């Protein structure tokens, strides 16, 4: 038995810790495990992947995981940009996904009917127990439920070793996830079928219109020339998004002043006067391409016109 897994998420969501916890717990249960995070720019919000292989036998070959048995997705907005990883799951394997969406919607999003789909609102659970948006404890719980290992007891011990704090809260979240995760079995499993793709061992995280070129064509000295950050639409990081109630807004522009990402814009809006006359007026709006959902705007708004609404 050798189970190969890939964990996908964003910097700051605790992906590396999640693999360390599950590996540690599996080792406590007598398995061999190797948690092999991929370190990149170490930037909050940037896509991160980590690998975890668990086996009955000692693992000496540190093979990169190319066609995983399990993919764990921390953020449903990564499914499209990281479709290569979903495609690479072996038929009959598992896709475990953290989302606030319904299992049916999640199924559509994943778009595969030959794998087990495991749906869980890990953010909600983490917020209630740990008071943080770190879905790793709950996802470890969902993993344990569908794989049958590591045991919840061992996960708790692993929390002690790997976190050394907030063990009870994290464990409560894990347990709730274990009970609540919804498992949708595949409509069909063709065990002889090959996965649709493989996870490449290099450059899987390039975003933007780059060309993968050979050593002769790469810029000399690795020089980087002026470009544009337009392609880095950081709006994908959001868990909550700001929504405005225009009737409450007094256009004081405090939100505009405080937004750390220049994501608050003024736009013309059609409005209707008391006698039905239509006119255009300036109104606050959000540039959701770049709004990271930090909630500062809602916090500073003196009239409570902005509400943060769950999006993930």
């Amino acid at each position, binding site marked *: 038995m050798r189970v190969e897994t890939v964990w996908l998420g964003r910097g700051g969501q605790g992906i590396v810790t999640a693999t360390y916890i599950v590996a540690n717990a599996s080792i406590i249960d007598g398995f061999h495990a190797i948690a092999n995070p991929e370190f990149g720019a170490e930037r909050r919000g940037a896509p991160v992947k980590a690998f975890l292989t668990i086996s009955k036998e000692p693992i000496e070959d540190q*093979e*990169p995981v190319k066609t995983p048995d399990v993919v764990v997705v921390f953020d449903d907005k990564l499914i499209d940009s990281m479709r290569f990883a979903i495609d690479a799951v072996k038929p009959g394997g598992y896709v475990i996904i953290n989302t606030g969406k319904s299992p049916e919607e999640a199924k559509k999003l994943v778009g595969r009917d030959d794998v087990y789909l495991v749906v869980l609102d890990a953010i909600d659970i983490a917020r209630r127990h740990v008071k943080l948006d770190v879905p790793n404890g709950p996802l470890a719980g969902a993993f344990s439920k569908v794989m049958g290992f590591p045991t919840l007891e061992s996960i708790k011990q692993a929390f002690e070793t790997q976190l050394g704090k907030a063990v009870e809260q994290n464990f409560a979240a894990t347990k709730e996830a274990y009970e609540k995760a919804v498992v949708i079995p595949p409509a069909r499993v063709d065990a002889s079928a090959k996965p649709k793709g493989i996870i490449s061992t290099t450059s899987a995280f390039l975003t933007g219109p780059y060309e993968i070129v*050979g050593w002769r*064509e790469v810029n000399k000295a690795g020089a980087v020339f002026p470009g544009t950050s337009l392609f880095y639409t950081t709006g994908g990081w959001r868990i909550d998004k700001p929504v405005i109630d225009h009737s409450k807004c007094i256009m004081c522009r405090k939100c505009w002043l405080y937004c750390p990402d220049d994501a608050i814009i003024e736009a013309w809006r059609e409005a209707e006067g008391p006698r039905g006359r239509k006119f255009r007026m300036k109104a606050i709006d959000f540039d959701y391409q770049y709004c990271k959902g930090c909630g500062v705007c809602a916090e500073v708004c003196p009239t409570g016109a902005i509400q943060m609404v769950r999006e993930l």
Partner: protein
Amino acid sequence: MTAQIVAPKERKVAQKRIALTGNHAVALAVKMARAEVIAAYPITPQTPVVEKLAEYVNNGELDAEFIPVESEHSAMSAVIGASAMGARTFTETSSQGLGHMYENLPIAVGMRLPIVMGMAVRTYSAPINVWGDYSDVMSMRELGWIIYIAQNAQEAFDTVIQAYRVAEDSRVHLPAVVAYDGFWTSHVLQPLDVPEDEEEVMRYAPITRSWVKLDVDNPAQLGAVGTPEWYWEIRWQAVEALRASLKVIQEADEEYGKVFGRSYGLLTPYRLEDAELAIVAYGSIFGLVKKVVDRLRREGVRAGALRLRVIRPWPGDMFKKLLEHVDKVAVIDRAINHGGPLYGPMAVEIAATIQKPVYNVLATIGMRAIDSDMIYDAVVKIHRGLWVPNTPYTVGLRGYE
């Protein structure tokens, strides 16, 4: 720490299985070896090791002086000073940090100080690449340090303990570095067995304080001027000590095997007895290499492999013996010997040792990932005669061939 107890009969010492990253395994070994002075510049690239050690010191689990210096240059200076006072010392660095420390590295050798250093190997800038390859440690080869290369977290743990015993042996008195893959070992969480009773480590590697040190009752000056009349002779002592340390390293490894149940040798051969083709490699990729050997054997190719564990001192005779009967020797190098006779540092040394042309393959530069299929494809090309010796080949470099 929670763990299950694994204590097979043949082991003298009871051990428990725990899960640690390579970095934390090294930190634990340093703690169990009761280092007395630890100096480090706590920033990338070595943070997790010294962070853990700082934690041990802070918690009172390790009675050591932790000196957070302002650069690697100072870190080496501090451990040189502490070691010259007779303390068991530790520091850790890699990459540009080693570069900054470089000026002091030969001083530790000339003063014959048994400093132990950890190194989660990484490449050099530019372009900035904080990821793993062996550029840093390979640039230490001329200096007189003992250089170990560990394959995984377990071995890194075991080797740090062995290194203290070897470095402080009165036949040696030289600094030692324990290198292990940046990220692929340093940040990978793996199971490892560690002694339940930490005192076992001290029994195996007691602090000898036998080296030349400063002592108020017996005043002396260390590291003073060595004029042309004396320098060479003094330095030659270090040269001879490094050569002689081969035997001590071996003894220490065998003894470690008897007490803790694990020993590794100076070189680790795999299915080499009747091999016609050998793959020589070092670090974490050896597991992949062994897999390739098994695959080739299944296909009827008499393949074997050899892992370099100690590259300074160089176990030349052992190489000759192990590779004597092998027709084709392929060396996977993980650092570039820019402009050298072959492009990989170990390929050059192995070719010089066995007096035969070798197949030189560069891989994992700047931590370009490889898998066993890529190694297999390269070795098959060598086996079929598509690649020729004395020519640099690459695995994973785009646009090369």
